[in-house]
């Protein structure tokens, strides 16, 4: 199982990251998820992402280990940015490779649900009108999305 996990300030090139996974011909399904900074109808200029850096990569690693325990994965990639991220820019990239599509899809969704609720990152909105931004509130939806994985198999 190849895994690439990284937290970084600079922008990433999704195609280059995925090429680095060196998917081999046992893989039949590759799913990628890119989370992008929405401009919220033109009102948002950027998101500033604060991290607990020493914990972030370790926690991402624990989430990935749990995904590997649940599904037979050939490769997993998680790249998460920190710092100022302008509207339209990518924040996070997740990729999962497996023999079959269901496993790859489920693992990618699981990773995103768990990263949202467990990885130590916090977003602050910077508005286009220059007014002081607020910290983005956690969504009950995200807690619910993460919780749905608990009924099927033991959680972290």
């Amino acid at each position, binding site marked *: 199982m190849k895994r690439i996990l990284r937290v970084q300030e600079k922008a990433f090139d999704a195609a280059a990251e995925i090429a680095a996974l060196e998917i081999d011909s046992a893989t039949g399904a590759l799913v990628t998820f890119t989370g992008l900074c929405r401009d919220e109808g033109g009102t948002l200029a950027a998101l500033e992402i604060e991290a607990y850096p020493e914990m972030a990569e370790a926690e991402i690693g624990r989430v990935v280990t749990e995904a590997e325990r649940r599904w037979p994965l050939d490769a997993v990639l998680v790249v998460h940015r920190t710092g100022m991220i302008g509207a339209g820019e990518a924040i996070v990239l997740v990729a999962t490779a497996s023999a079959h599509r269901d496993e790859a899809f489920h693992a990618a969704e699981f990773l995103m649900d768990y990263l949202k609720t*467990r990885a*130590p*990152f916090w977003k*602050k909105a910077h508005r286009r009108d220059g007014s002081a931004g607020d910290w983005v509130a*956690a969504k009950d939806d995200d*807690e619910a999305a993460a919780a749905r994985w608990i009924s099927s198999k033991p959680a972290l």
Partner: protein
Amino acid sequence: MKARYFAWVRERIGLAEEEIAPPASVKTIADLIAWQQQRGENYAAAFANAATIRAALDRQHVKPGTPIAAAAEVAFFPPMTGG
């Protein structure tokens, strides 16, 4: 032990980290939050609503009932909003 604060917990306290020395009666994360609440106005504001505070001990998520024991680092922060 070292305490670290993130996002609006950090902003309300006005510190990213500090050394803390809670009394021996502070045994769990919940005890530590209650102790922080009485350290001043800024701490009271940061820890006003304990239900919205998440904590990590030595860089792993923990629940309010978790004993602090011999942890070297505790962190307090709001619910996470990454991804």
